[in-house]
């Protein structure tokens, strides 16, 4: 291939510039977080006396440990159940191919682009009537329902490509549908399942609208919802707000950096399918 040397250099330069723009907000948060609490620093300026204590202060003010616990509980409620229900339905639609599958599938697909704001008002009254307002279930149960279109769509796409012969030979050996599903198809679906798990984890952890509408107590919300409350409470103390924001986005960042390759693949596939 003819690679223009100049082209490669413009490419590199552009890439570095783009990365700089991407990282800039994080750097700004970090530097500002080191200024004396309550001060009003200007722009990007390394403080003369970095206040590392701000992170400790924000850690306590935001009650980070409780927040992580709350978000984890919500994720543990949402992700496994969504995976299970989505896999069951995707298996039936994509592989068992029962009559009427195209209609069910269409009903699910119609929900793919649904903006959550569209249903938030009735959800509030419904959750209230169920007596679940201000509990974590108020976030968990609706999210499972709202994730179904994507989960079913995703898992169906996987099962549709599984060869029929696989099930045939299992049936010859006397497996029933249930065994066929658990022993043969679920193990084979692991790559698709883990990507889906990553996406659902991310969307749940970062869920904001449901958290602020359905749960008043920041300690029972997702991280994102808690950050909203933290901003309301400490919005005037810029360095503390910056420190708190960094702490609150740190868990996803750490998990992302550990599993980055899986994340990038999952997000790419996720947006391609969605």
């Amino acid at each position, binding site marked *: *291939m003819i690679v*223009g040397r100049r*082209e490669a250099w413009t*490419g*590199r330069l552009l*890439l*570095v510039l*783009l*990365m700089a723009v*991407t*990282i800039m*907000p994080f750097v*700004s*948060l970090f530097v500002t977080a080191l200024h004396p609490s309550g001060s009003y620093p200007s*722009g990007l300026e390394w403080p003369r006396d970095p206040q590392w204590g701000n992170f400790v202060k924000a850690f306590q003010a935001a009650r980070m440990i409780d927040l992580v616990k709350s978000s984890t509980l919500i994720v543990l409620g949402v992700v496994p159940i969504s995976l299970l*229900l989505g896999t*069951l339905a995707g298996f039936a*639609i994509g592989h*068992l*191919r*029962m009559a009427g599958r*195209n209609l069910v599938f269409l*009903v699910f697909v*119609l*929900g793919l682009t*649904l*903006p959550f704001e*569209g*249903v938030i008002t009735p*959800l*509030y009254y*419904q959750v209230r009537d169920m007596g679940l307002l201000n509990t974590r279930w108020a976030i968990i149960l609706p999210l*499972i*329902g709202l994730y*179904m*279109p994507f*989960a079913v769509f995703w898992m169906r796409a996987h099962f*549709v*490509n599984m060869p*029929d012969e696989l*099930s*045939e030979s299992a049936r010859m050996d006397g497996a029933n*549908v249930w065994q066929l599903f658990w022993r043969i198809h679920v193990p084979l679906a692991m790559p698709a399942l883990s990507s889906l798990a990553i996406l659902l984890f991310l969307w749940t952890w*970062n869920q*904001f*609208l449901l958290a*602020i509408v359905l749960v008043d107590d920041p300690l029972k919300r997702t*991280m994102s919802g808690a*950050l909203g409350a933290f901003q309301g409470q400490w919005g005037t103390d810029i360095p503390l*707000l*910056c420190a708190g924001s960094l702490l*609150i986005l740190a868990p*996803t*960042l750490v998990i*992302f950096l550990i599993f980055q390759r899986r994340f990038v693949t999952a*997000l*790419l596939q996720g*947006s*391609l*399918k969605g």
Partner: protein
Amino acid sequence: MTRPTPDSVVASPATRPGPAAVTRKRSPARGAGLRTPRWVGWLFVAPALAVYAVFVLRPIALTIQYSMYRWDGIGPSTWAGLGNYVKVFTDPDLFATILNAVKLIVFFSAIPVVLGLAIASTIRRIATSRLALVARTVLFLPQVIPLVAAGIAWSWLLSSSGLVNQLLTYVGLGGVARAWLGDFSTALPAVGVIGAWVLLGLCTILLLSGMSKIDPALYEAARMDGAGPLREFVSITVPSLRQEIGVCVTVTVIAALASFDIVYVSTQGGPGNATMVPGLEIYYLAFSERQVGMASALAVVLMVLVILVALPIQWLTRDRTS
């Protein structure tokens, strides 16, 4: 992993259900159908369908029902017919929210997709270098963090003493420095910039991964024929990336129309109503102003708008060969 299209099942002859008699006779040969009554599949679908019905389908139906009433959420409701919808399109404040969402498309979609295309085609040749691998991770950061955090970080960058103004002053443009999110004329574009920041990386990487699937021989042939970079871009890159561009446009347009988190954190719809978007207005109407009917009418309009925009894009850019 193969890329599925929604109708691939329908299109494959093996799965097309034949006449009932034929199906029954042949069922032993049809794999999953072997000795499995066809209704068993419904048992597998039932749980998913149940939660979906309770927490999505029923609320959608209720939203439509609420939208026909005047209701404060507590007392009795009165029938309003299509009155709420008329108001959505005639009340300047309400209609402005829809216009604002449409204007945000320029920033959320047009900038990330156009800029993403330009950047991706420039860095295409170094797409496998170490630098590009690092960039893949870095450019995904905005996708991973909560939008709320992005909003807080950018509110600070765009504030009167933030980094943006500092940079402007540094290059001698101190005259235009201002509180970008607090100024009537710049608040909406400033919110748009935040959205562009969030989505640019995703679009660039998505388009870049699409470009890596284009046969390099095509480019070589074009070079032999004396095509310049621009010609290459228009004749090879863009047509080959139809599907990826479609995905980028769909994702970003929905993000613009349904924006909530970023606006809530950075401006709360202000100053005045300058950055009010439908999502935020629904939230205020339903939960602060107790106009549940109006909120629901706006919600229905928003849902229809999203579908009206998403469907044609999907249809236009679908890969027809598969």
